[in-house]
């Protein structure tokens, strides 16, 4: 589908920007209990530690979306999600380094 008649403006999600627990739940279509579970397993770290006023870095939003898809599609539990996300981060870093190295080698 082409949707290029007009240009979409976007804003950078700033470093300090946060979401409330309710906003995060709405964004991902999940219950608060599930977010609590992610926090307990260290997948997600609230900016403020007081559970009643939890706020989350807006930059973590894609991580929660990925976590939701992993839970739904692969039936992973919270520790499985935590492990998968850590390994995926590591693979992304290594692939980035490999690609940069290959780009440098090609130059030579």
């Amino acid at each position, binding site marked *: 589908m082409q949707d290029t008649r007009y240009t979409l403006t976007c804003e950078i999600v700033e470093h300090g920007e946060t979401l409330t627990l309710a906003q995060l739940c709405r964004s991902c279509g999940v219950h608060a209990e599930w977010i609590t579970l992610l926090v307990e397993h260290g997948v997600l770290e609230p900016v403020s530690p007081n559970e009643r006023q939890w706020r989350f870095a807006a930059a973590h939003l894609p991580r929660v979306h990925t976590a939701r898809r992993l839970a739904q*599609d692969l039936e992973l539990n919270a520790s499985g999600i935590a492990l998968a996300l850590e390994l995926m981060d590591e693979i992304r870093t290594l692939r980035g380094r490999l690609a940069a190295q290959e780009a440098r080698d090609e130059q030579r």
Partner: protein
Amino acid sequence: MEYKDYYKILGVDRDADDATIKRAYRKLARKYHPDVSNEDDAAEKFREANEAYEVLKDPEKRAAYDQLGRGGSARQDSAGGFQPPPGWDSNFEFRGGGYTGADAGDFSDFFESLFGRGGFRAAGGRGPGASAGGSMRGQDQTARIALDLEDAFQGGQKMISLRVPETDEHGRVVNRERTVRVNIPKGVRAGQQLRLTGQGMPGLGGGEAGDLYLEIEFRPHPLFRLDDRNLMLELPVAPWEAALGATVKTPTPAGPVDLKIPARSNSGRRLRLKGRGMPGKTPGDLIATLKIVLPEHLDDETRALYERLARESDFNPRKKLGV
């Protein structure tokens, strides 16, 4: 319409038991999950595996599907494709509850012609512990996009292709290729996100649409490597430039600039060009790391000069090694 061999898709025998089918499905789901896999057609393979499992895990659907494939009761349509025989499903009753974890809205025409569209859930209603009912804001969506370094350095318009789930006219969720023109803000960094307000999933019952978040990553650049706001460059210099000092041309994304190399610069020395990195409130620096390189071929004259240097110099670079 094309006949789908669900057993072949999952890689199991036609008489495979439920446990074998489940195991095969889970293996494929892990392998081709679009968040995990790096393969180009991962999303399509993941969708196929889901469709196959949706049928084969359900005893009713599986029995109906098996009957269809047996004894040539299936026939070809005029285009040479597949047509289910009339009344093929008369002995089966498919209930809405048959659809479970998978996103049934995404299945093939073949699936739809056999099992219909019952039980599809509306956008925004899935996920662990999803809530439902009343007017609801649409879910946000996230996607990862790869930019060239120059896109972020200069900012400006960029066409971006995304695969996003959308709700079609029947209220089903389908994956669509969507190309949008986006204004990339100058100085955006890897790992940062861009928010496009109202470009996520549509809302339900008059609720507003969610937002679309684009996570930025950069394609590798042949010259520069990004380190947060700083641009790292390996700058080749001749031995005599390194020894005597020189002013040399250095590439930057904004065009070449002059860089002064101090005398007696070793390989690996880092020189900082302040403010020549990625633009922003606090612009980054360009950090050039010197690398001493020799000419590929030494002509007679150069060789003679090096020979004289070798004869007359008493420099021992290995003094610290005690040799």
